[in-house]
């Protein structure tokens, strides 16, 4: 293989695919990326494809570049991108030497890097899905990438990280499910349809909801793994890599880079002009969460300005001890008092004006859990409660005009108890 490519372009591609590699060393080839040349006989275009996979999530990026000699090589993703980052912006020349080494030259910098046999690289299947398939096959759905991204943003933090994954309840992923509200009528007179993304680590639950025009039937829903969500979000955030039109206005992604998200029974796909990525779904059963978000279970509620409570909690966190990890909330008629103490440091008490309905109540929570969801709310928040030992449900205060439609996001947090 012998190619020349712009270093800046190559670097952008590397940073995009790097997250798809496997960092643990169980199978060394998975920490590598595969670079291979392509030659489209129809268009006469030549260039390279960069592939990365950890066997669960996979990506392939494609770009045109000068190909002097066809071929392929597998390079350590981290080693390569760490090195490329430091180089000046110029043409990057790359040539393999007998499948054992690759020579990389940028300006007067020259490197020889060890490579692995491209034959050993796992085959990645990117089945040729397209939106047109949607009509024919009922099992293929599409979602607006920006909708998916905003749902990920509002829920990803309550998926347990691999280190805190404990036993049965930690699925390590988010449920994506469709939902039709039988009672509510949409503007067009039909039933209102939603898709929901739900995550939980057993101690808190996050739910993001989006109204869709057309009903889709996702059955029991699909579970997208955490790492996949993270990479999908990054892809959506950074698309398009090579921007065709980008005048800064907030257009939908599809308009910008032609990106789309497609769902099937077993995978979720990201497609844009130069990138295709797949995320294998988790096979499992998501715990039943319907009773947790049933508003009738929460007789007490407080209305409070979210940014104020958020900043109070951030102050509290500076003093919350690692030991107890909790802040006390006293919900009273017209104030909410947040209190945190740390035997080694001192204590802090912050009253915030609020509007409480129901009995006064005191509950302790891990402040980090509240901070993560309150930062998603711009205006007033509604905090619903059961009792001292029950969960709390947080949502943005719905506008007066639309009090009945379900909120765009809900968070349920279990308290600390003695």
């Amino acid at each position, binding site marked *: 293989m012998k190619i020349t490519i712009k270093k800046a372009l190559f670097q952008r591609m590397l940073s995009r695919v790097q997250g798809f590699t496997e960092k643990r060393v169980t199978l060394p080839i998975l920490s590598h990326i595969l670079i291979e040349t392509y030659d489209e006989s129809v268009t006469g275009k030549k260039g390279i494809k960069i592939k990365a996979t950890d066997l669960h999530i996979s990506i392939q990026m494609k770009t045109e570049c000068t190909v002097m000699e066809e071929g392929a090589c597998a390079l350590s993703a981290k080693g390569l991108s760490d090195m490329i980052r430091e180089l000046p912006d110029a043409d990057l020349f790359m040539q393999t030497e007998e499948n054992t080494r690759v020579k990389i030259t940028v300006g007067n910098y020259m490197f020889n890097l060890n490579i692995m046999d491209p034959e050993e690289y796992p085959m990645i299947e990117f089945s040729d899905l397209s939106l047109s398939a949607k009509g024919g096959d009922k099992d293929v759905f599409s979602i607006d990438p920006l909708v998916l991204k905003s749902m990920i943003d509002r829920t990803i933090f309550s998926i*347990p990280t691999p280190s*805190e994954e404990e036993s*049965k*309840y930690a699925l390590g992923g988010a449920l994506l499910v469709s939902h039709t509200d039988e009672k509510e009528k949409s503007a067009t007179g039909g039933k209102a349809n939603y898709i929901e993304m739900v995550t*939980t680590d*057993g*101690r808190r*639950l996050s739910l993001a909801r989006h109204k869709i025009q057309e009903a889709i039937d996702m059955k029991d829903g699909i579970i997208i793994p955490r790492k996949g969500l993270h990479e999908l979000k990054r892809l959506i955030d950074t698309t398009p890599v090579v921007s065709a039109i980008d005048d800064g206005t907030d257009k939908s992604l599809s308009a910008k880079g032609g990106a789309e998200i497609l769902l099937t029974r077993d995978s979720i796909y990201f497609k844009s002009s130069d990138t295709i990525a797949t995320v294998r779904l988790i096979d499992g059963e998501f*715990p039943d*969460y319907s009773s*947790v978000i049933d508003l009738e279970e929460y007789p007490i509620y407080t209305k409070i300005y979210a940014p104020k409570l958020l900043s109070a909690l951030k102050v509290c966190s500076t003093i919350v001890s*690692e*030991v*107890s*990890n*909790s802040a006390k909330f006293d919900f009273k008629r017209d104030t909410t008092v947040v209190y945190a103490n740390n*035997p080694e440091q001192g204590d802090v008490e912050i009253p915030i004006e609020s509007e409480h309905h129901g009995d006064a109540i005191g509950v*302790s929570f*891990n402040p980090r859990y509240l901070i993560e969801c309150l930062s998603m709310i711009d205006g007033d928040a509604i905090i619903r409660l059961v009792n001292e*030992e029950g*969960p709390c449900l947080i949502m943005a205060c719905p506008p007066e005009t639309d009090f009945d439609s379900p909120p765009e996001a809900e968070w*349920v947090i*279990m*308290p*600390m*108890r*003695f």
Partner: protein
Amino acid sequence: MDAFYASVEQFLNPNLKGSPVAVGGSGSHAVVSAASYEARAFGVHSAMPLRQAVRLCPGLVILPVRMNLYRTFSKRIMAILLRYTPEVEPVSLDEAFLDVTGSCLMYGRPFDIASSIKNAIKTETGLTASIGSGPNKFVAKLASSMGKPDGLIVVSPDDVIAFISPLPIEAIPGVGKKTSIHLHSMGINTIGQIRISNKDLLKRHLGSYGGVLWDLSHGIDMTKVEPFKQRKSISHEVTLDDIIYDIKDISPVLAELSLVVGTSLRALHLFARCVQVKFRYKDFSLHTRQTMMPVAINGDSDIFSVSYDLIREHCSFTKGIRLIGVTCSHLSALRQSSFYDFDTKVERLYNKIDKLRARYGMHTVVPGVMLYPKRKDLPRGSL
């Protein structure tokens, strides 16, 4: 308290009064836990192997350790101390610091308070106590050690330097073998000699502890009396009978340690967010590794799996393990509750297990891994 465990035994069995008594474990490797002053006259001291103690003192009366009994006495003594001030910091079963700054108006000078306490302990428990008084904890501790047995020494602020200067460096609590060898090599043998040495030089040789020593030698100790200090950690460790080279052989030991630590945690209604393992290789090098958990735990099996992961990840078994320990810290009575009733079920289960263990012994209910056939015997927990 003076020779606390031994004194309690002597008090309960007047026939033992005046004879050399040692309280200690049983078995061939047992050591002396406490020795009466009569036994100390023969050179018997705590931590000495019982066999050696008997050699030194042929008439030595050896009694088994009765921890619950000493605890009862300890509680009664602490209750007496609390009459004089709420500022009581228990250090161990038989030792406590009192801050009587605020009590002088009511009870008189420190000397009056001290003799009143001594009297009360003597008449109400039959045991003798040694009391030292000084402007800070360091001086008070030295004064009480100096006065043993049945002592009462009050050091006024003006006399501090004169009192501590002639004492050997080993008298300073916290100065162990290493530090004392280091200081001796610098030509320093007494606290007075620390006082006249250069503070920076001490710091260079001993690190920040050098500065602390210099302050102490000037009678400066700013640590406060902290009443009923919260437990900071709960730990248990065991020196292995045979060097272990295989993680399979460590599992039953870890299970045992987790069981002991978990039972203690639950007895105190505490949850831990941090688990630390400690291991000593055959070459005596000591290592610790710890992990912070997102949610506090106190179940035996949780502690086991966290410590097992730490050991598996950080311990190189080819080096041979001779000691292993588990410590739970970042303790809190608060815990994060969860959506599932699984946690409550586990809690109820441990509740029952703990009751069984309290009644029929620690090993009534053990995890299967502890029955691994290679284990010759189960190391006994300290409970």
